[in-house]
């Protein structure tokens, strides 16, 4: 304060400006908090409503709150062969997709990591392009393509389509994990007598495996969730659960959909918790794990 004291009027002016600034900051903070709360309500209210609907004992879409609760929609789901068939396909598909997308993602990520930037950047753009192409476009394109090429097996069609849309997530998580591994670790392994392949399996892979697992879980969840691509590639006998739900929505609407939705939400939350427990969600998207 001593150094400012000689010019008092100046100080008063400064104080006034600081006060105005503080008010402006408070207003800005209130707006930010408001927007966050509003967005969260927008996201969470429909989910909450879905949960309430899934336990609604009424036969029709009635007003909130439901007069009585029941688990009849869950019971109906587990006794409906049409939906169960979809669930079976979805789970098989998600599991195989997770394995295939992760294996491909791992190989691609390793290659991208080793290539010079001028090759890896455009390749990366190609690998990630399924993220920017709308699912509907992708689904339609695949349908035409499979017909031309002569892929008849519906499950194979679905699998290839799902691998295509989940593969970018696998690449990203594996790349993040690989990026966290110091190159000196691999160099030391090689100088200790490990061939490049051995160095990969004894050093790179063990250090990247959390990222690999995260990629697999992402692929599983996104495969389970997809409608846009699957709807083009399904047929009346082989279809995924979300596709079954959509067609149910058109044909005979009832609250089984809500029950299934809640089950899917539960499964997703479970997998995300698993992911968080395994790697920490921040690490999947954040900085490398093994840089100290």
């Amino acid at each position, binding site marked *: 304060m001593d150094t400012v004291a000689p010019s008092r009027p100046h100080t008063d002016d400064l104080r006034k400006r600081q006060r105005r600034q503080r008010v402006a900051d408070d207003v800005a903070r209130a707006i930010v908090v408001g927007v966050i709360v509003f967005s969260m309500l927008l996201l969470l209210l429909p989910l909450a409503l879905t949960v309430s609907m899934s336990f609604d004992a009424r036969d029709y879409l009635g007003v909130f709150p439901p007069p009585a609760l029941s688990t009849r929609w869950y019971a109906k789901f587990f006794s409906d062969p049409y939906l169960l068939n979809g669930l079976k396909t979805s789970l098989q598909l998600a599991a195989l997709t997770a394995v295939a997308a992760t294996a491909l993602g791992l190989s691609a990520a390793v290659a991208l990591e080793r290539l010079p930037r001028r090759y890896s950047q455009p390749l990366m753009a190609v690998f990630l392009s399924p993220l920017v192409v709308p699912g509907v476009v992708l689904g339609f394109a695949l349908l035409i393509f499979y017909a031309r090429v002569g892929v008849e097996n519906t499950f194979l069609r679905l699998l290839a389509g799902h691998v295509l849309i989940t593969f970018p997530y696998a690449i990203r998580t594996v790349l993040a994990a690989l990026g966290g591994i*110091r190159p*000196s*670790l691999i*160099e*030391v*392994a*090689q*100088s*200790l*007598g*490990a*061939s*490049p392949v*051995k*160095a990969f399996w*004894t*050093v790179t892979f*063990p*250090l990247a495996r959390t990222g690999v697992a995260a990629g697999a879980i992402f692929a599983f969840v996104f495969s389970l969730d997809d409608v846009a691509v699957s709807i083009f590639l399904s047929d009346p006998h082989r279809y995924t659960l979300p596709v079954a739900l959509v067609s149910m929505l058109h044909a005979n609407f009832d609250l089984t959909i809500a029950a299934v939705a809640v089950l899917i939400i539960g499964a997703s939350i479970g997998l995300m918790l698993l992911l968080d427990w395994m790697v920490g969600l921040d690490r999947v998207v954040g900085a490398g794990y*093994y840089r*100290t």
Partner: protein
Amino acid sequence: MPPSAVLELNHVSKRYGNTPAVIDISFSVQRGQILALLGPSGCGKTTILRMIAGFVEPDEGTLEMGGRDIRGLRPHERNVGLVFQDYALFPHLTLEENVAYGLRQRGSAKDAIGDRVSEMLVLVRLEGLGSRRPGELSGGQQQRVALARAMAVTPEVMLLDEPLSALDAKLRQQLRFELKQILQAAHCTTLIVTHDQEEAMSLADEIVVMDHGRILQHGNARAIYDAPQSRTVAEFIGRANWFEGKLGPAVSPELREFVTSEGRFFVPANALSQSSAGESFCVRPERLRILAEGLPADEGMNLVQGTLLHVACLGSEIHHAVTLESGRTLICVEQNRDQTIPAAGTRLRLAFRPTDCIFTA
């Protein structure tokens, strides 16, 4: 190739695009010798280390290890022990597994691996910590694990890249001796790459000073410090007070005059025998002696008049900055021996012997 040279580089060059990284490098390391490549960052010393380890191939020249041409061999086919600045310990393995890694890759028998690992852990004094993970160790301990891991496979050459620079100053000094003892106890032929002159001088039997991809001087620490062949070496290793001028006539069979704008000095008569142009010489700070005004100087000493600018006591040493009448400032270092330290502003004289004058190219 001399019979005892374990590692020999002959006229090795490497360029990246149009930028030469290493130019015409030749040196050899004898069995059991510790040699340091010393130079500022970007001088090419790390490129040389990476060429020996097999991560970089030289454009020109030959690389021999144990009498065998190792060009074209991949890193895992060469027998070198690498220790990186960041130690590069495998975080997912225990200490034992880290040290055993190289032996496992070589397919040694399980019992032999166990014996060798405990032997190495004793050597680096980490016995009993074998089941810990690298993250649970201090920096100094990690460094020793990295050393043990590299030595476990009995490499022909140990390559140490800035082995101590990740540690704090105190620990670094302590570990220097320890590192040297460990390397000597195991008779390791070692190449150390460092930018730290103290590290090089305290660890190495021989030092190769590098700058801009070239070797400037090759010799032991004393020779490089006392007889630097170039101004760059004189300034990179230690500190130097320079005097610019011209050689004058001989005054005796041993002495010549050297004329500067700051006075006339006696210098050794053979000053020009080396490649020196004879237009400048330097004196190391600890060779300058402070004489209070009025005190007589020894016979044959060079004297220069100045004013004490400031004094700093660094513990064992006292550093004096002395401004000459020409306005230049010289650095003078004395041991802390209970002497009276003159106050700043005191007029004094600096004395040095003719043999303290170092002429460089």
